[in-house]
């Protein structure tokens, strides 16, 4: 490996239990996707955090522009009826 050439960055998503969604856990460097899975396993699931791992090249992630925050998020602020706070959640329902 060329010394100036670092391994590309991957974003790591871990599903902690069956039925839950994958959650962003952090990022790691790896030469390719299969090495990224192993690195993610070694770095982020040491304490039984996961049952499934996704990795994706960080360069493939498209992020929203902070400058657009007003246009994107402001309109939702005064629409409280969109929040599920007008009914009670039964105790048996977990992970909602």
């Amino acid at each position, binding site marked *: *490996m060329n010394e100036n050439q670092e*391994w590309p960055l991957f974003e790591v998503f871990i599903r902690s239990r069956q039925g839950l969604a994958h959650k962003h856990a952090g990022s*790691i*460097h*790896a*030469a390719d996707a*299969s*090495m990224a899975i*192993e*690195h993610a*396993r*070694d*770095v982020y699931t*040491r304490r039984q955090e996961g049952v499934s791992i996704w990795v994706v090249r960080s360069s493939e992630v498209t992020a929203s522009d902070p400058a657009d925050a007003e246009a994107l998020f402001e309109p939702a602020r005064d629409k409280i009826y969109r929040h599920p706070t007008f009914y009670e959640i039964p105790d048996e329902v977990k992970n909602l």
Partner: protein
Amino acid sequence: MSDETRLRYVLRLADTSLVLGQRLAEWVGHAPALEEDLGLANTSLDLIGQTRFLLTYAGEIEGRGRSEDDLAYLRDQAEFLNLALVEQPNGDFGQTIVRQMLVDAFQLKLYDALQSSTDRRLAEIAAKALKETRYHFRYSANWVIRLGDGTEESHARVQAALDSLWRFTREFFTADEVDEAMARKQVGPSLAQLQPGWSARVDEVLHEAGLKRPADAPYPWHGKRGQHSEHLGYLLAEMQSLHRAHPGASW
């Protein structure tokens, strides 16, 4: 059960995992990348975990009240019965990973066979260790392939490591009276029967890595009989010094 042979057999398994685990721990803080640092440390901790079960069991077989710590920290070099390969120095990352792949492939076959041991305790320890070993092998084999099939330099380095370490693998399959007695009681497998499976596994990796399998050669040290290379003494000195200076020290 006063069973000197069984004790020696279990100590060989335990010491092989312990010394290899200690070797890998030497990489902590020095690995080529943070991710590999953690990978090597994870494998090291798995091996030391296996050691704890095995040494505890060895202490019970011996029946003199020695604990896992007593056996790990208070025995001298000639009493260690690990395979000589695992005490060989780390060298560069390539050498560490070649050593690891050769041992992982062996432990895969060994633990798989030990699952059906007539010794229930060993069978249980082997079943747990096998799951960990599958990951160790995947990790080390992938690296051997990447480095062997990598740049000219990485290829040359892992081939050199393979050439210098290969002769130690003969000890894996050379059965002595302990191995034979345990095979007769169906406590352990016949080592000769493990060899073809190991060989096929290793050949697969070497082929994909574009590495040449070295010729078999006589090996100079009989680690499992307590005859070690000059490297083990230094490793034990480092591993045991704290416990010997502060007996019973704990976190």
